[in-house]
């Protein structure tokens, strides 16, 4: 058996294609997180297919997406990283905070950029320490602050009790520090309700919420945990308009199983929703109708498909920036990193791509790898089966977040022996 494995790997290692721009997609289409992993992976791949079909790639060089199934499992994620990095991978987007923590030291050693859009290690915003890690346009701590700001916009928060229902992993634990600081600042009481992986069983957590009656519930969930939580909340008749999820708990797959009872559930987002954008006409024409869509091709216009596409779009724009900066068409990971650090998203750029007003404007710099942290609140309309934004893009409480970022990144720098500074 070993011999055959050897032979297979030898075949794989012998044929690296260096001519393309390689964008590995560490996706998960199986397991308890598949319902959320599939639309993101489809959106990511379809956007690159669109670029190849319509524009002949990025700057004339075709983009190549290598897909590798991680199942949201860190061990498989590491295997995928090792298997694809030799193929000239330009950027990794693992869509898993656990895998991100594994990859941060590895990509830094290998010199490959890592983009964790709205997830991962929040303090990676400090680019002076995390040279190869980017988390623009928003991060978990921004999300926690947005949720609290939204609750404050609806009335006095002091003295209220707010529950955080979270995935008991690095992902779910990320916002706790921020929420603790915010609870001190604004005088609300924070109640922590962890849900263990995968989160199919949450009876006891929601019983606790029924007993303690928090005024608001914030959820940091992912995968099957989201659906279960929303159904359980409906079962105990928790008022949905007081229930607000992070952007990872705000896809159609999460609310549809609860049916009408999910009406009024809120979720944060850092990009726009729906398929009312010019780029969708191109996507249908060049990708879906041509039979080149990834997966089943039925996810267009869903929240996570849009996010996957947004992630691919930001990667493609960073690649374009890198091509302009270096003057080379065929990029290396180092050039890609510089491109990401010089990325500037403007309204004009997004309109040109066919996504006017889709995401916030931001500019990446060495000091700030995290963008502006703008976010909006969306609400689910169960009758129309649609998300709609109920607020505009608003900023987060940087007075609270920035010191935490400085503290956490300094701790990482001390632990890993990194000198802060720009490359």
């Amino acid at each position: 058996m070993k011999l055959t494995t050897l032979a297979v790997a030898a075949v794989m290692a012998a044929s690296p294609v260096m001519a393309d721009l390689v964008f590995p997609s560490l996706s998960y289409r199986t397991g308890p997180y598949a319902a959320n992993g599939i639309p993101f992976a489809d959106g990511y791949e379809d956007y690159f297919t669109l670029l190849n079909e319509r524009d002949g790639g990025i700057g004339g060089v075709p983009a190549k997406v290598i897909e590798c199934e991680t199942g949201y499992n860190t061990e498989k994620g590491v295997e995928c990283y090792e298997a694809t990095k030799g193929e000239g991978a330009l950027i990794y987007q693992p869509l898993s905070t656990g895998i991100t923590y594994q990859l941060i030291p590895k990509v830094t050693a290998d010199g490959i950029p890592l983009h964790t859009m709205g997830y991962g290690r929040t303090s990676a915003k400090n680019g002076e320490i995390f040279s190869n890690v980017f988390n623009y346009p928003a991060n978990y701590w921004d999300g926690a602050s947005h949720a609290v700001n939204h609750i404050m916009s609806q009335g006095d928060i002091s003295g209220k009790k707010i529950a955080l229902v979270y995935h008991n992993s690095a992902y779910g634990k990320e916002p706790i520090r921020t929420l603790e600081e915010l609870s001190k600042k604004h005088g609300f009481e924070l109640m922590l309700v962890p849900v263990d992986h995968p989160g199919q069983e949450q009876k006891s957590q929601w019983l606790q919420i029924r007993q303690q009656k928090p005024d608001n519930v914030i959820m940091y969930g992912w995968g099957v945990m989201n659906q279960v939580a929303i159904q359980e909340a409906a079962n105990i008749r928790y008022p949905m308009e007081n229930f607000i999820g992070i952007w990872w708990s705000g896809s159609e797959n999460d609310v549809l199983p609860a049916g009408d009872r999910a009406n009024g559930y809120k979720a944060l987002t850092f990009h726009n929703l729906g398929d009312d954008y010019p780029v969708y006409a191109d996507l249908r024409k060049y990708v879906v109708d041509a039979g080149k869509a990834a997966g089943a091709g039925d996810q267009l216009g869903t929240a996570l498909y849009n996010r996957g596409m947004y992630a691919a779009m930001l990667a493609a724009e960073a690649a374009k920036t890198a091509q302009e900066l270096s003057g080379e068409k065929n990029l290396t990971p180092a050039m890609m990193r510089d491109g990401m650090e010089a990325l500037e998203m403007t309204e004009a750029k997004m309109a040109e791509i066919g996504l006017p007003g889709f995401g916030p404007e931001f500019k990446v710099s060495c000091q700030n790898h995290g963008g502006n942290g703008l976010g909006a609140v969306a609400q689910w309309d169960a009758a129309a089966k649609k998300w709609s934004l109920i607020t505009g893009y608003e900023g987060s409480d940087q007075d609270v977040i920035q010191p935490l970022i400085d503290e956490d990144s300094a701790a990482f720098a001390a632990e890993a022996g990194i000198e802060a500074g720009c490359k």
Partner: protein
Amino acid sequence: MFYREAGDFKVSYPEDSQTFPIKFDRYRYYLVLAVAYLVIPFFINDYWANAVFVPFLIYATAAIGLNILTGYCGQVSLGTGAFMAVGAYAVYKLMTAFPEVSMLIHVPLAGLVTAGVVAIFGLPSLRIKGFYLAVATLAAQFFLVWLFNKVPWFYNYSASGQISSPERSVFGIIVTGPNTEAWAKYMICLIFVTLAALIARNLTRGSIGRKWMAIRDMDIAAEIIGVNPMMAKLTAFAVSGFFIGIAGALFFSVYLGAAEVGESFGIDKSFLVLFMVIIGGLGSIFGSFAGAAFMVLLPVFLKNVFVGMLGWPTDLAAHLQFIVSGGLIIVFLILEPHGLAQLWRVAKEKLRLWPFPH
């Protein structure tokens, strides 16, 4: 023809009682060691180290540990994942508290810590047996995972509850952290697995091992012939814990680099190692290696065939891989309930008679 005792005369007791009394076996063993130590390190790359060899060697260490407990002493354990977590957190605390000490010291120390913890969780085995003991170890699994999640001291108060291994070295060679060379990772795991196999093999051949096996085969009879059940069971738990702790320490520090207890050391890890032991063969050191190889290499192999060679979609490949590995496990267990080690034993019997089987 090659594999037989005839003509291989032993003139001293040590010669007669050596691990591999048959010459062919012995040379094969030396050859495997030579390839593992002198050939592979020069050819290994990152992919081979991280996807194949390092996990294989680490799981083999864990399987040896569980095999001592379940295969040799007959005590079922479903707490292997959590016991590996004890090793991982112990080595993490040691690495961060004493940065200048070599990993060659930290890892066995983590093994010792785990041995102590596992021996404590082995105490119920003095009163309960079989399924009931399995449930008691299951409680250990959930309790330890909960503990490592709950008490921030274990993860040095990091914001996310993750532990990540800093850069540490052995004689100036970096063995943990992102800048580790592939061969260094491989070598440190290889050294520990070799030692674990040697120690385990010799323990099981000696009086302690015989006591374990007596308890496994019939504990009352064993007690009557003078085996102290408490000592036998607790030493089995402790020795097993030592190896599992080493495996956990290496798993976190060398292989993963960062770990989260619920995900990396959950109940599925306990079952994975238990499957390795059952498929490899209970009560066999070779079986531990064979089982680990089967469970670690087969998924990687199938994935490379389905996605790399045939170009199938990744989700189809992932599902098919479950079906194929699950099916193979069932086929193996029906055809050979005693595992891969028994197949190997049968093959050796056949070899003895070859080429004249009558």
